């Protein structure tokens, strides 16, 4: 099962290597990972999407927590949360398909952010499944390149993960 885990870490050199090394060294998989500083510049937040059965996910949570630089680990899997991911998609936009590309972009409330004679670059934000869906719809038009951020997650309501 897929799990989204948020990790607050001290923003220090080598912390990403510790987290990545933990996953590779213990044979856990990372589906996506995004990292950036929080409001408090000494703390970074990592959002990790991983897969595994309950035993593995429990180990991942505990092992992350065990790292000295880790301040907090939150598994969002069974929590009420909002998750968003962004993708940039470079899709060919020929005479016959340009209108369809724009229509799909519009339906998904995505944006064309770069226009070239025979291709558009599109920015889309949403849940991972929404991003999957637009990619599927654009695929027949000829996708040249896709870059995805992997999801970031926040708890719903006034609850805060950080403190």
């Amino acid at each position: 099962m897929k799990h989204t885990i948020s990790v607050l870490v001290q923003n220090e050199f080598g912390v990403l290597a510790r987290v990545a090394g933990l996953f590779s060294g213990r044979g856990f998989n990372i589906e996506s990972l995004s990292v950036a500083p929080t409001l408090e510049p000494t703390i970074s937040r990592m959002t990790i999407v991983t897969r595994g059965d309950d035993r593995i996910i429990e180990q991942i949570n505990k092992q992350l927590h065990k790292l000295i630089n880790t301040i907090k680990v939150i598994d969002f899997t069974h929590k009420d949360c909002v998750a968003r991911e962004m993708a940039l998609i470079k899709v060919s936009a020929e005479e016959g398909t340009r209108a369809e590309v724009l229509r799909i972009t519009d339906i998904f409330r995505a944006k064309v952010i770069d226009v070239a004679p025979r291709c558009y670059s599109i920015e889309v934000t949403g849940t991972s499944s929404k991003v999957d869906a637009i990619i599927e719809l654009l695929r027949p038009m000829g996708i040249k390149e896709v870059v995805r951020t992997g999801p970031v997650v926040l708890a719903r309501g006034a609850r805060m993960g950080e403190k």
Partner: protein
Amino acid sequence: MEMTGSQILLECLRQEGVETIFGFPGGAVINIYDDLFDSPIHHILTRHEQAAVHAADGYARATGRVGVALATSGPGATNTVTGIATAYMDSVPMVVITGQVPTPLIGNDAFQEADIVGITRPVTKHNYLVKDIKDLPRIIKEAFFIARTGRPGPVLVDFPKDVQVATDKFHYPDKVNLPGYKPTYSGNARQVEKAVEMILGARKPVVYAGGGVSSPEAGEGLTQLAELIQAPVTTTLMGMAAFPKKHPLSLGLLGMHGTFFANMAVTESDLLIAVGARFDDRVTGKVETFAPHAKIIHIDIDPTSIKKNVRVDLPIVGDLRDVLDKLVKRLSEENEGVSGLIDETVNWRQKIEAWKEEQPMRYEPSDKEIKPQFVIEKIREMTRDDAIITTEVGQHQMWTAQFFDFSQPRTFLTSGGLGTMGYGLPSALGAQAAFPGRQVIDISGDGSFQMNSQELATLVQFNLPVKIAILNNNYLGMVRQWQQLFFKKRYSQTIMEVPIDFVKLAEAYGAKGLHASHPDEVEATIRRALEIDGPVIMEFKVAREENVMPMVPAGKSLNEMVLAS
């Protein structure tokens, strides 16, 4: 007063109470060595950086204090890795300091540069690169704190040469501030309550104790619990010295080379109380059939140890002494419950006694050739109770675990988790440095001994009277045993074809060498060695194809032991 980085380092060590360190100099630590020249800190020069780390490890295991090792950059640092990994697997508190090339050169493939922080990340509890002298006192403070608290472990501090010569005002912090590091010491009272209930309801309880009980305090808690509820106790290699083997409740070692009765008891038990143990594969055998009828209570300070390998019915995270004290206190209040439990478990203890009689730990004695187990029994007989025993890794290590009756905590130093050949001699060196007046004996094999035999020179130089018993079978015996049992006796690369004259080797280093090849000579050889006031090698030519039995073949269940014939 302005001090240099290397002076600050030594002052930090002094304030941490460090008296002895183990190391090997080199270009990137030459400033530290220059300051050591005038320092009250005693430095022991090993002949290899790996040995320096094992020596610090032996020092730490024997004393319970943080061991300290020092090595130069590059190859000096990479040579420490096996020692660090050994300490990490066995949760030994240690601080390893490595020199590093000057910070502007880091990443340039400079002479004797290695990314030791990157290399040791998976085998340290934590590690640091000191980039600014202002961080140095805090880092050293944190390193010692992290090494000795929670589940102990090695911490590496990589210390670039330009930071060693930089200067700053020295102030040693009183406290550490580590928001991400708060080990749980106090066991949850509700979990303890549930444990009391489970214990009182048990009919076939077994206590399974690991390295977490190696401190005298935890060992005492363990003994109190076991005696109160009259439950048999089996230990891992790491937990062995914490519970006296002669204790009527002792089952000895469990697992691959464990006793018949320990393995049977665990297999039939209905409640397994795991105390500071981690269900290693050498203990569990086939995980699916491990303790199939038992509910499992798992007490450990490290939450990641719990439910890592086996299902657990009741986890209790906390310091063992705290949790065991709470359990003993609560159970002591349940007079009726406990006496009921003791009555109800009479049959269980009788069954275990019957197993002990049926299949005691034994070997076939001989009056023609020296049996390795016989040497170990004799060493036990002839040494004091507080003698410190170290081993290398292999058959001799398992025989020591099986046939040496340990009775005091911190007297058995062996590489359990990593299984590092070459550990025994340098760790004995470290233990002897900590306790000059105690008997320290490295029980060794001829294969393992050669992995760090250069440390004979250190023993002689620093007048460390370690006694080395080499059980020489001219084989890499444990691998040979597997080849005999599972690979049709195809002894691929396990025959040590060049016979070594260990007596001459000892003499070449200025130590004493003794030799025995007949059972009648064993006792006299050990007696002579113990009388000599200096390092001694005792070489015992032992029965070459003796095997370690019982044995649970890899991947089999504990009750599928192959027994001694």
